[in-house]
């Protein structure tokens, strides 16, 4: 018994006095840089340690013999090492390999500005679009403060890198919006039809865009709607121009939001004098509905429908002599329906299918002439995305556009004309993540128009290389084709595709809440449509004999850090472009182009008074115009464009916001060009009228209230 007890005590003592084994070493990345906070442990035990600031670690364990040492660290591949705890537990240096993570891989940003909460390298957030002064919550106006855009104030549309306004296409959830702007008269700037708060993400491409899109020679604007609202709410808006109300109802799997808006500028025009002579101030009625249904566990059906009616009437000088006042009225009806369904099949497939229906009817009454243009378009689209492997995915898609355009007039011999087209498109594109630092995106686009019975193949390629953890260099090359507009095709339906080739080189640095981006580009245009006649009047001799080029340099600097609570960005664009198109007698600088464009956007949140202040300074160098009294074509120069706009949003209560804005505070009389009479007067001179802003300044005041179960939500996003 005593021997047994002695043996037991001895065994216990021996167990207790077993020295701790020590494993020491350093954890580094591939370049030898120490990694702090890594988790080092013996497999299948609790025994472990964490690395310090320099990556050094000290692990103590009671185990001896052969074991496996595991190292894990977020962003890196787990590393296992066989180890004999007695004999080689000291002085280990373990280099971890960076784990391939698609979210961390370099994303190609060349030629595109993204506003997104989700994407890590997005230069903008969706809120930026709505808080930019001078834009009054219009998406295009806000995007006009980014590089690559031109100030073409009399239209309110996007003119990108030497391209005409018709060279930009707009998509909602991948489906085409034929007429995203309200129709206007008399060179009055238009605005976008869609409220920015519908969208969770915006991609504005200034060139070299994906093979998924086509029929746009210059750029695409891709808007993605919000997936699913979080809870019930009522939004009310009372503004100097009208009122709006929206209701959101949310269930477990379904949600619906309906909104109504009515705008009438008559009271405002009675107080603030306008440059144009309105005999019917713009009046707009708008209604829309958004429906969501989580049909399957991962599948989401989105339906968006919108209807609007707008009427405006002005007196303007006649085209021929610019001496007689002519009443002009425009009555527009617009309908848009967009349904898309996205679902995941297995772990590798994502399928999206959608359909969009566009209806636009413009009824013009110009003096004695009645002119109606009715456009209908259906867009059907299917895309499949397949995860080939961890490092590559493939996207394939097919789509059809059915367009029917009808022109009706009360002029004898020009009563009715209809233009139908069926355009079929297909694309294939792949994202290849060669390494974490190098991504390649080749693509091919195919289009076929039944109207002209011609196919077109357009290859595209882009690539990005991460030069450091916060900078990248990227390059894009692409061929783009676009059918001439229906306004031209109605005279000659055998025209060919207009073409453009893009070459873009980009460098971007994003560090410490500051972004610097520079892009160099070269665009070559071919087969642009040329004709005889005036843009408004009947045309003849249409052909694809035009061409042109656009070279330039864009710079973007954004700083959210240097000044406390202040966020500002500066955009500068340099453009050198000439083209031969429309009725140009020779290659010349087009009237929408200006050599230098500058925007400075400033935002400041003052928390003591719960107010967000914003200001935007815009400058555009002189634009060309054609003066028929002069020999040279497009030799006239307008004065430079200058604008200072300000806004303020005051968070009165959690769910109540006061908003006020003034565009062109200094009242600068910006002249965008001149309208010349078609016929010379008695002295052989052509009279002219300046094309200027609707009014020196635009004042806007609004009150926005959100009523919801959760009092804290407000419409900060909508402003």
């Amino acid at each position, binding site marked *: 018994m005593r021997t047994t007890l002695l043996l037991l005590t001895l065994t216990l003592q021996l167990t207790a006095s077993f020295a701790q084994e020590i494993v020491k070493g350093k954890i580094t990345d591939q370049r030898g840089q120490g990694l702090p906070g890594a988790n080092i*442990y013996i497999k299948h035990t*609790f025994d472990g340690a964490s690395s310090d600031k320099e990556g050094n670690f000290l692990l103590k364990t009671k185990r001896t013999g052969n074991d496996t040492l595991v190292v894990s660290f977020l962003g890196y591949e787990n590393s296992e090492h066989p180890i004999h705890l007695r004999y080689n537990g000291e002085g280990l240096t373990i280099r971890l390999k960076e784990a391939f993570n698609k979210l961390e891989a370099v994303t190609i940003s060349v030629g595109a500005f993204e506003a997104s909460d989700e994407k890590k390298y997005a230069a903008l957030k969706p809120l930026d679009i709505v808080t930019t002064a001078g834009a009054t919550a219009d998406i295009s106006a806000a995007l006009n403060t980014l590089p690559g855009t031109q100030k073409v104030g009399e239209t309110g549309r996007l003119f990108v890198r030497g391209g005409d306004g018709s060279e930009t296409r707009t998509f909602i959830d991948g489906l085409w919006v034929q007429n995203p702007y309200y129709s206007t008269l008399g060179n009055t700037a238009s605005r976008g039809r869609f409220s920015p708060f519908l969208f969770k993400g915006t991609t504005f491409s200034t060139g070299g865009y994906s093979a998924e899109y086509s029929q746009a020679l210059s750029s695409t604007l891709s808007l993605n709607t919000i997936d699913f609202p979080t809870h019930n709410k009522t939004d009310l808006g009372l503004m100097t121009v009208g009122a709006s109300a929206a209701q959101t109802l949310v269930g477990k799997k379904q949600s619906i939001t309906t909104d109504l808006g009515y705008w009438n500028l008559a009271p405002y025009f009675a107080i603030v004098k306008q440059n144009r002579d309105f005999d019917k101030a713009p009046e707009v009625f708008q209604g829309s509905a958004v429906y969501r249904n989580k049909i399957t566990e991962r599948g989401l059906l989105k339906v968006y429908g919108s209807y609007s009616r707008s009427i405006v009437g002005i007196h303007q000088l006649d085209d021929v002599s610019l001496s007689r006042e002519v009443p002009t009225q425009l009555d527009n009806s617009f309908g848009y329906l967009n349904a898309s369904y996205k679902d995941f099949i297995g772990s590798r497939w994502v399928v999206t299918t959608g359909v969009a229906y566009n209806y636009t009817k413009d009824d013009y009454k110009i003096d004695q002439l009645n002119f109606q243009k009715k456009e209908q378009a259906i867009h059907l689209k299917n895309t499949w995305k397949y995860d080939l492997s961890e490092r590559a995915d493939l996207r394939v898609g097919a789509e059809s556009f059915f367009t029917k355009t009808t022109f009706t007039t009360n002029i004898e011999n020009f009563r009715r004309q209809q233009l139908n087209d069926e355009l079929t498109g297909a694309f294939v594109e792949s994202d290849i993540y060669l390494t974490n630092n190098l991504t390649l995106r080749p693509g091919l686009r195919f289009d076929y128009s039944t109207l002209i019975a011609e196919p077109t193949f357009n290859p595209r390629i882009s690539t990005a290389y991460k030069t450091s953890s916060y900078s990248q260099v990227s390059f894009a090359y692409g061929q783009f084709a676009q059918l001439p507009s229906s306004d031209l095709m109605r005279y000659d339906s055998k025209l060919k595709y207009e073409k453009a080739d893009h070459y873009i080189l980009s460098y971007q640095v994003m560090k410490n809440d500051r972004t610097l981006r520079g892009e160099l580009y070269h665009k070559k245009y071919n087969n642009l449509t040329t004709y005889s006649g005036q843009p408004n009047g009947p045309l003849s001799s249409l052909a694809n004999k035009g061409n042109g080029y656009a070279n330039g340099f864009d710079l973007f600097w954004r700083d959210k850090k240097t000044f406390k609570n202040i966020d500002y960005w500066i955009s500068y664009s340099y453009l050198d472009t000439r083209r031969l198109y429309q009725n140009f007698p020779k290659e010349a600088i087009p009237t929408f182009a200006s050599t230098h464009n500058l925007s400075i956007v400033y935002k400041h949140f003052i928390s003591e008074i719960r107010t967000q202040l914003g200001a935007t300074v815009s400058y555009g160098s002189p634009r060309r115009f054609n003066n028929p009294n002069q020999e040279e074509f497009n030799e006239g120069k307008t004065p430079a464009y200058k604008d200072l706009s300000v806004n303020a949003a005051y968070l009165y209560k959690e769910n109540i916001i006061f908003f006020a804005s003034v565009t062109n505070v200094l009242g600068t009389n910006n002249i965008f060009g001149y309208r010349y009479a078609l016929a010379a007067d008695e002295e052989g001179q052509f009279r002219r009228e300046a094309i200027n802003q609707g009014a020196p300044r635009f004042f806007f005041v609004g009150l926005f209230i959100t009523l919801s179960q959760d009092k*804290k939500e407000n419409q900060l996003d909508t402003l």
Partner: protein
Amino acid sequence: MKKIITTLLLALTITVTFANDEAYRNAMKENIKAMESSQNPEELQAIANTFERIAKMAPSEWLPVYYASLTYIRMGIFEKQNKKKDAIFDKAKPFLDQAIDLAPTEGEVILLEGYWHMMKLTADPVNRSQTFGPRADELFNQAQAKNSENPRVYLMKGHMEFGTAQFFGNSTENACALFRKSLSLYDKAPSDELAPSWGKGETEYMITNCK
């Protein structure tokens, strides 16, 4: 002699299997205590790593990944450099997701998910208040529905209420009522010594800011 060796071996085997459970509980207890009392980000990183190791040893338990996530959240709170906070909260997410996978209907897990959203909101309030704020509220309500006696529910709701009241210069009375309710519920002993019991000190501290 053979009998003694067999008995000894048997005793050792029982110790070993019992030790696993005992070791698990001890390791958990020790680290829960360390996590609750530490305000040093480096220390908290090491504690989070320990919870990660415990989780690998007990992959069907939700508590280790729950505490790993909670430790990272605390680490983010005590991190002095604002720039790093968001990245640290992101480290908490994979563990939170694992806890949700293992125990999707557990009230404390739902509350933790709300806590995570609330902290992500504080890292970028201007851009995230419209999405993360309502989501956090929704999750706190769900957690309350699971267990209306959970003191942490009222602590979290109190935090949201307090932050908003301060921002608008309103009275913090509602927030304080929530903190007091929370405090009264802490005195009830938790069912299991490993179950979440944190937050009392924090609640007491918030009450000192009340009148």
